[in-house]
């Protein structure tokens, strides 16, 4: 099976509460919290599309779209 390639991190900032679960459990250290405490993808190139963040986010605030 072809390796998944990231298209985009779809982040719903209105729903994100900045708990940091996605940041902590990302195996490639792709995500960070911004000044307002909301998540953003600071190193999207490193993303391996494992979707751990999408699965664990308690707030349904992050989705991984693959190409």
């Amino acid at each position, binding site marked *: 099976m072809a390796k998944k390639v990231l298209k985009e991190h779809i982040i719903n900032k209105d729903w994100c509460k900045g708990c*940091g679960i996605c940041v902590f459990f990302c195996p490639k250290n792709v995500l960070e919290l911004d000044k307002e405490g909301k998540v953003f993808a600071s190193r999207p190139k490193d993303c391996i599309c494992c979707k751990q963040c999408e699965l*664990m986010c*308690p707030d349904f*605030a992050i989705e991984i779209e693959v190409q």
Partner: protein
Amino acid sequence: MAFKDYIRERFFPHIWCPGCGHGMVLKGMLKAVEKLGIDKNNIVMVSGIGCSARITGYVDFHTLHTIHGRALAFATGVKISRPELCLIVPMGDGDALAIGGNHFIHACRRNIDITAVIMNNRIYGMTGGQYSPLSGIGKYASTAPYSTIENKFDIVKLAETAGASFVARTTTYHIREMIDILCMAISNKGFSVVEIFSQCPTYFGRKNELKTPTDMLNYFKDNTTPIGSKVKEANPELIERGVFINSSMPEYCEEYDKIVAKAKKNTEV
């Protein structure tokens, strides 16, 4: 159907605190329903009172938000009346096992086809962090400022002894396992109990040296182990996860159908 089609989006963001495990349980449930491909119109979700109970507001099923501890009794009435419907009853640990303890053991005993999901965060969150029957000894809570002295229930053993035909335990950290277990539980024809350790960083964590959601998730990772693993021999304190009971037993509604047949036959004579 995308699993987001199962939520009532207009009520998001949900009311739970940052990092609360209940959102993860909600996601696990929806993923399980999506995987099983159950029609939204065939699912009735019944909840009680507490943080856990607010889950029914967020799902696009037939939803019944009831009174504290009695969700299983309401669900029993729905199920017996419409046995073809799929009944899912998410409950908190206080909801299910303190005020609702009696209904819980009797629902197990009847083996009625309902899936009970106990979102165990070991605390009463909605009212501000009082200890629950699942807190265990030596924990701090807003009603246990000098620490708790009460033993906790073992939900798995309780459900097993009371007669549930499917009993499992998992955690929010192990969300993939949670989805698989929920699929099995919902598919089981009988009373299914799934205990899910769910983090309450706001009240349980803060008072018990697990200050962040990730601390709590790591606690679940470090303190649990799959059933029968070798690690448990070395460290007996570890709590086992997985499916403890998955057996085929007479289900209440099916047995009642036989009673109806018997009653009708008797009157014909």
